[in-house]
């Protein structure tokens, strides 16, 4: 029997079964649809179908003035709204040649790193749900809640912050925030040990994670994997080090890598990255200078004609924006987001052939996709 899946012909032979997993499925993290060609429980072919969350963000942006675009970027990768804000603001600032004040830069880094911690925590939480441990899920959300409290203290919002502004940030932070932040980081650092122990001292879990869906360094580069997934294969590539933005070059932190390239490595890289982020936030809190939080920018933002490409390291990998201004209007001529989850999902079918459904779903969870980021 032949099926037409989004214009792709798929043939179902004897002994095979086409299974539509999603768009409504507990483990497809949002509205991703995986069309699996199964032989028994083994997936011979994987076809990801996307577009169920498409809102036309790039087109909407063409009809908004520059400051109005910031809240829209929140809604792309909703688990790392801070990084989306940041990359967009960086692009506009570069185009207009705006110098961001020192304190604003520190606040940006604090916000972005806290966001990374929150995002990785939610990864661990949902990953726990996928391997059947609801306890880990609850624990992950518990810690994330504390980080969200911090971000709320910073920006006034818990989820879609719109915290970054062109030329700085929205609000200043108080002494109280600094104290609260230090306390929270200490708690999270302690609880991360529990997470590591849970994974490393559990035979059943190690059996499930190790050696599943392996990607070698060369493969990972060829497939275009990005972010923690790339680093889990042993490629030390992090935009914060390779092409430092804001003032990341002043901070002392390491690129976390793992050699194994399997699901286990992808989980452990994220846990270790939380530690590095805690290091960065601590340094930033220590050195946080006084001063302005926003540069002087014109009331109507009208960048000169030109094009710019800005990129940041979001929790999911290389997040970039390509912006063209025609110099005549206060709206961008064209804006294009290069989102990391899209690159990761595109690579996914190539390194997961012939896995059983449970392994496949764990591998799917381990690349940490966010559908809002993919469909935009």
């Amino acid at each position, binding site marked *: 029997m032949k099926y037409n899946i989004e214009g792709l012909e798929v043939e179902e032979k004897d002994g095979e*079964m086409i*299974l539509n997993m999603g768009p409504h*499925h*507990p*483990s497809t993290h949002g509205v991703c649809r995986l069309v699996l060609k199964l032989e028994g*429980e083994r997936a011979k072919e994987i076809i990801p179908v996307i577009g169920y969350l498409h809102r036309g963000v790039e087109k909407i942006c063409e009809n908004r003035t520059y400051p109005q675009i910031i809240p829209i970027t929140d809604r792309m990768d909703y688990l790392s709204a801070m990084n989306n804000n940041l990359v967009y603001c960086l692009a506009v600032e570069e185009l207009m040649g705006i110098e961001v004040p020192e304190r604003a830069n520190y606040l940006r880094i604090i916000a972005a790193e806290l966001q990374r911690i929150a995002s990785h925590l939610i990864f661990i939480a949902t990953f*726990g*749900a*996928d*391997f*059947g*441990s*609801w*306890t880990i899920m*609850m*624990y992950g959300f*518990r810690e994330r809640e504390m980080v969200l409290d911090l971000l709320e203290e910073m920006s006034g919002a818990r989820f879609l912050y719109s915290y970054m502004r062109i030329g700085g940030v929205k609000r200043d932070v108080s002494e109280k925030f600094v104290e609260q932040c230090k306390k929270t980081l200490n708690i999270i650092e302690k609880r991360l040990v529990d997470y590591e122990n849970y994974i490393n001292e*559990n035979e*059943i*879990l190690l*059996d*499930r994670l190790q050696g599943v869906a392996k990607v070698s360094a060369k493969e990972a580069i060829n497939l275009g994997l990005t972010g923690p997934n790339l680093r889990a294969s042993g490629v030390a590539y992090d935009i914060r080090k390779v092409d430092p933005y804001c003032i990341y070059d002043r901070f002392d932190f390491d690129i976390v890598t793992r050699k194994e390239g399997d699901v286990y490595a992808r989980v452990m890289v994220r846990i270790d990255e939380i530690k590095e982020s805690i290091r960065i936030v601590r340094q930033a809190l220590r050195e946080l200078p006084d001063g302005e939080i926003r540069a002087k920018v014109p009331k109507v933002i009208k960048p000169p004609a030109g094009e710019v490409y800005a990129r940041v390291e979001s929790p999911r990998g290389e997040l970039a924006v390509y912006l063209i201004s025609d110099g005549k209007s206060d709206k961008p001529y064209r804006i294009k987001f290069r989102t990391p989850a899209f690159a990761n999902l595109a690579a996914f079918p190539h390194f997961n052939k012939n896995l*059983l*459904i*449970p*392994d496949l*779903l764990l591998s799917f969870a381990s690349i940490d996709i966010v559908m809002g980021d993919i469909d935009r």
Partner: protein
Amino acid sequence: MVAELVDYIMSNKILLGISKGVVVGLFIILYASLMVLFLTWVERKVAARIHVRYGPNRTGPYGLLQPLADGAKLIQKEDIIPYAADRLIFTLAPVFAFAFAVLPFAAMPLADGLILADLNVALLYIIALASLSIIPVIMAGWASNNKYSLLGAMRAAALNLSYEIPLVLSIMGVVLVVGSLNVFDIVKYQTEYIFGIIPKWIIILQPLGFFVFFVASIAEMSRIPFDMPESESELIAGFHTEYSGMKFAMLLFAEYIHMVFGSMLAVLLFFGGWHLPGLGYVLSFLENFLSGFAYTVVKWAIQFGVIVAKALAIMFVLMWIRMTLPRARLHSIPTFYWKYLLPLALINLGITAVAVAVVG
């Protein structure tokens, strides 16, 4: 009038048997259902505590009425049968599941002398019915005409082949020790003492056997880490994906009854049943005050309470395991059962046989 009726029934052997059967049968169904309702509440509370949250606390004191509220909700639900489903089998599956889950209780004593059918091959009957419980799962999975249900049912069938043999072999160890298939005899055996102090519970004589039995019965109840047939994050809900309303409730009931059954069996076979050190003194003390029928009822109530308390303790361990461990890898499970648990069970059986031959 009533007295005459009672007299008539008492005088007629067949009528007496039937009425006794009806009363005890109703009691067992009632008991199993109440136990299940209570268990769902306990499970949610225990899970919540382990998850660092509160669990149900709105309906009634400590949320105790939550199961009733859930039941009321399920009754109101529309009873959906999918268009492409096999209507007859789809409807029969929950009924069978419930029946097969309740039937083993007929041969399981609830107290000393309180039993529906005192079979001398009780264990054989219980094991046979326990292995039948796979049939409704396959029926439900097939009749739903849903790919997830089918995958769940196939997993259940494949898994059933793996855990059934170690389960039965571990029970055989107990049978060898006691020398009887009758559950009464097994419990009676355990009421004695070793050196006059240690109760002769079979767990002390058969620790390895109990381990095998316990691990295999977790799979029999299809709970994490062996909940392949319904692993919710992979197969939505496995074989009961398409079920709703009371049909779903029946399947859920059956599953929890399996849990009650498994822990009851563990109590009867390994933990001395209604026996508790010191309980004998209390009973003989009570015998001075109460006479005949009243004494029997009180004795039954106390012994039944002991069994339930022990069973609840085992169920707590099951919940604890479920909340702590992740789901095992699909193709590691048969390996684990065939390569490790089955040899363990065989070794246990061999050692027991030699010991029984030498000692007894």
